[in-house]
Structures are given as C-alpha cells and as structure tokens.
C-alpha cells in the first residue's frame, strides 16, 4: 500500500466518518450542562467518607484504586520495554566515540541559576507529592517534577553528577519497590478479610497532611515509582552520549 493509496482511502473515509460523528455529536447533552448522578454523589460524599479534600485523587487512589494499580504497571512495563530496547548489554565490547559532539561552553550565569532551580524543583516536587489528598497534585505529577531536576543537573554541564544520579543501580531497585509497595498496600486488607485496596489506615482530620488513610501512602509510593521510572528512561536515551562509548557491532 503506497502513500497515494493511503491518502486516497483517508480522504474518502475521513469525511464520511467526520460527518457521521458530527451528526451524532449534535445529540449529546449541551456543553456546560452536566446531568449525570455519579459526579455529584462522589463530590458530596468524598470529604465525609475519606476525609480527603481532593476528590479527583480520592477517586484515583481509593474509589478506583484498582485502575490506578493497572496504570502503574503500564508505566512499569513500558520502562522495562524501553530499557530492553536501548540498553547496552554488559559484556558487549565498546569503543570510545571520540570527539564527535563539540559542546559549546556554558555561560556562568546559567550555572549560577541552576543550583537554586534544582533546590526549588526538588522541594516543590516533594510538596506536591505529599499533599496529594489535599490539593491538586499527587504522586504522578511529583514524580515527573523530581525527575526533571536531574535534567537541570545535566544542563549545568555536570555530566559526572548526572551520570551518578541516574545510572545508579538503586534507581531500578527504587522503581521496583514503589510498584510493589502499591500492590502490597492493596493486599494488606485481603489478609484482614476486606476487599482489595480498602482504606484501612486511620483517616485523621480533614486538611491534615497525615489524613485520608492509604490515599497519602499510595500517592507517595506512586511518586517514588514515577521518579525512578523517568530517571531510567532519561538515562537510557542518553547513555551513549553521556558515557561516550558506543558498542561495536
């Protein structure tokens, strides 16, 4: 199937589908008048039942915690796929790449700004991750924010530091521990006799950092796992450039 045939099929089938979709979309409820019952029900009950003020995270980690468990394993499996595809095996002989990429010297002002930026990023990432049940945020956002802190280190021309942060064996262990602890937190209620992923920890007072039971704990575990996952992905993409060695074919 060459390109012309593909484009012809698209130009024929596309407008037909578009027309049918627009005809169907005119029958959807008008924009701005949500009338379903479940959203209102959860918005009214979540604060009293779970002592969590962020209903979106309460749904993600408690009411529909099983779906988020599946999503964490999607992330885990995708990172395994990336590392399997791109990682160099340990016993393949390598040769130095030589002076292939000349890096222009960084100005001092960039380096002067980077270290406060790394500090602010890390503190902000921890804040977002620990307040998942109170304000918008939660584990996943915190993980991505913390992982981009390592890129700031790389931007400061500190390749040795970047290599030490991201290529350590502990990063893989931390990712596995994060994913496993989410599953373990879910299995603990099974041992008591309650369904999977029930909120069994004490709920605390609404608005406290240590409230909402397992929601805060799961949010922290997800944050740990996502940080380590993104660090692994970033290092796997940059491995040849950072170490300067390429495998011989």
């Amino acid at each position, binding site marked *: 199937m060459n390109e012309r045939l593909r484009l012809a099929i698209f130009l024929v089938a596309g407008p037909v589908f578009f027309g049918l979709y627009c005809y169907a979309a005119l029958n959807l409820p008008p924009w701005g008048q949500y009338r379903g019952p479940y959203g209102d029900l959860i918005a009214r009950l979540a604060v009293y039942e779970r002592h969590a003020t962020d209903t979106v995270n309460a749904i993600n980690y408690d009411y529909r915690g099983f779906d988020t468990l599946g999503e964490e394993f999607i992330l885990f499996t995708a990172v395994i796929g990336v590392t399997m595809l791109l990682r160099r095996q340990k016993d393949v002989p390598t040769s130095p790449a030589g002076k292939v990429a000349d890096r222009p010297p960084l100005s001092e002002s960039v380096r002067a700004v980077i270290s406060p930026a790394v500090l602010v990023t890390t503190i902000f990432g921890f804040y977002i991750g620990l307040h998942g049940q109170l304000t918008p945020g939660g584990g996943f956002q915190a993980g*991505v924010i913390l992982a981009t802190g390592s890129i700031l280190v790389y931007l400061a021309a500190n390749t040795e530091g970047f290599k030490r942060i991201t290529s350590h064996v502990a990063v893989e262990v931390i990712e596995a521990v994060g994913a496993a602890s989410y599953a373990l937190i879910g299995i603990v209620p099974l041992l008591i006799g309650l369904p999977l992923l029930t909120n069994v920890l004490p709920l605390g007072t609404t608005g406290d950092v240590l409230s909402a039971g397992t929601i805060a704990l799961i949010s922290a575990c997800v944050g740990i796992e996502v940080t380590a996952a993104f660090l692994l992905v970033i290092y796997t*993409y940059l491995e*040849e450039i950072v170490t300067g060695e390429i495998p011989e074919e």
Partner: protein
Amino acid sequence: MIWCGAGILLLLAISAFAVVRTHDVTEQVIALGFYGLVTALMFFFFQAPDVALSQITVGAVALPLMIMLALSRMKFHKATRQKEGEHE
C-alpha cells in the same frame, strides 16, 4: 466566560494544525510544547487543576524532553557512523 472557553478551543484547533503541518522535527517539538501549554490552559478553564498540572508536567516538559533526547541520540549515532566511515 463561555466565549472565553470557545476562544481557547479555537486556539487549540489552530495550534494542533500547526503542529501537524510542521515538517522539520526539531521545530515540531517546540510547537508541541506550545500545544501542551494551550491544552493546560484549556484544562484550567474547564476547572480541572489536577489534570492541568499533569498536562503541564507531561505535555510541556517531559514529552518534548523525551523527543529531543531521542533525536539527539539519533544524531549522535549518525555522527559516529559517519566518523567511522571516514576512518575506513
């Protein structure tokens, strides 16, 4: 307020077309970053701060970052292969 939302949606449609019609990949990454920011703005208008935070960190930071890393690895690979070709 609804007209403001309609305006943001039209801006979203225009920037999506701009991303698709950019053919140089490095320029497209920057356009994708802008598209991610406009999507986050739309999420803020739709009263979804959690999703907006997610979209900013993923769609405007992590996604262009990963694409640029892949592109730089491909360029590095091409440069080393060319250098080996010169040596032989």
